[in-house]
């Protein structure tokens, strides 16, 4: 199949998302168990990416990876967005601030690759800027209509996952809003609402990571989700159930203090993020696994991370693992995790290292 065919097929699927997504919530026709396997059975030993030291990176708060393995690094400390080749060589610095010149507070928190080489940046106050590959402003907005739990980009479309409304009931719908690269709102796609709305109102897992885009459209998560949920209606959807998954029994109680709410959130398994490991493979990150999943010899940092991996078209059976690393990004068949700043020979401190772990599809995978 040629690249042109693949692109054409993807566009067709995206249009299906746009126009069919307004139907009922997906029907969960099948659930497959995702047994826990050792981490090194799913991911090869890490190799290290050293970001070009001519660019100073304070802290990698958000990382995106495109299909060529290029890295889009958002430095929340330095307020910068930089593009690096997969080797770590610096390619370009983006300047979202120039698109909102009278807004001095714009500090990008996240940035993602979009179609046509464009880049989308978002800050925690929902200022969104779209830039071309050569850093020209395409769209910019100081305020979006909604708050968003995350966003992803696929081709010419941007998908923003709406932060659920405080007045939602468990049976209500939520929505994913589709924007053009020029930030024109194209449509709202209704999606199923959270089972536990009071949990999902104040809390999110990893900021801007509750949705990711795949070849068959976006998938999103709520904090209580067992698996990522496709935006696209698909009667044949197969859901996976990680072995460590123990369902949260109830929503957080009404009228309790924020501290008590936070404690309640942290008491049970929490679904923190969804990543597109490949265009067909979704990876879901969980934290607060039960004590019995603590791996011997691995320092307990208090988060107890779990990962599940499943293929959207069933090319391999789902698996889950206990993760010793906190994934910052996934793509290009790898997960990426920011490490410590590299000490330089002259005694200075260099950029944070990026550790990259290649995904090994389960052995009984087809083909």
């Amino acid at each position, binding site marked *: 199949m040629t690249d042109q065919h693949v692109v054409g097929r993807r566009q067709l699927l995206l249009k299906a998302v746009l126009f069919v997504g307004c139907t009922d919530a997906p029907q969960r026709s099948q659930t497959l168990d995702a047994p826990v396997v050792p981490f090194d059975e799913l991911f090869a030993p890490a190799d290290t990416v050293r970001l070009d030291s001519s660019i100073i990176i*304070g*802290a990698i*708060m958000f990382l995106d990876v495109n299909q060529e393995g290029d890295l889009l690094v958002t430095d929340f*400390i330095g307020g910068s967005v930089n593009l690096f080749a997969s080797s770590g060589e610096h390619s370009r610095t983006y300047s979202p601030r120039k698109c909102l010149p009278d807004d001095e*507070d714009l*500090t990008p928190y996240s940035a993602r690759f979009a179609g046509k080489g464009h880049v989308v940046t978002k*800050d*925690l*106050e*929902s200022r969104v800027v779209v830039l071309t590959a050569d850093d020209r402003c395409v769209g910019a*907005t*100081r*305020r*979006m*209509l*909604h*708050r968003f739990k995350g966003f992803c980009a696929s081709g010419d479309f941007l998908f923003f996952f709406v*932060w659920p409304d*405080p007045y939602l009931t468990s049976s209500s719908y939520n929505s994913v809003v589709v924007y053009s690269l020029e930030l*024109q*709102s194209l449509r709202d796609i209704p999606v199923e609402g959270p089972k536990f709305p009071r949990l999902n*109102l*104040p*809390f*999110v*897992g*990893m*900021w801007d990571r509750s949705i990711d885009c795949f070849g068959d459209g976006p998938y999103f998560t709520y904090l209580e989700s067992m698996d990522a949920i496709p935006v696209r209606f698909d009667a044949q959807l197969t859901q996976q159930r990680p072995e460590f998954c123990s369902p949260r029994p109830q929503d957080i109680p009404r009228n309790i203090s*924020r501290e008590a709410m*936070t404690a309640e959130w942290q008491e049970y398994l929490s679904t*923190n993020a969804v990543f597109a490991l490949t265009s067909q493979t979704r990876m879901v990150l969980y*934290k607060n696994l039960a004590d019995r999943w603590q791996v011997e010899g691995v320092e307990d*940092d*208090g*988060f107890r991370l779990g990962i599940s991996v499943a293929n959207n078209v069933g090319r391999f059976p789902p698996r889950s693992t206990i993760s010793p690393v*906190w994934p*910052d990004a996934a793509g290009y068949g790898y997960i990426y995790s*920011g*490490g*410590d*700043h590299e000490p330089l020979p002259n005694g200075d*401190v260099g950029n*944070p290292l990026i550790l990259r772990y290649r995904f090994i599809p389960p052995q009984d995978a087809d083909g």
Partner: protein
Amino acid sequence: MASRLQYTIWFVVPFLTGLVALSGLQLWFAGDNNPAPPVRAAALVPDDSMLVGHLLPTAALLEVQSKGHVLVGDIRRVHLP
């Protein structure tokens, strides 16, 4: 006694007209060109010392104040020199 037609003209039609006008106004004010009130980034938890180069714990929560709500999410570990 007023006929059903008169009742419709004098009461129902103005009511519906007003309703439509109000909805139109609401849509106009809520349009993309006039979006929601601003949100304001608030505190970094456990503190905002990351800006002056302290080492934070392996991970932390980040709070954002938005439309009267405090939104809380995970940020991954932040290692600073």
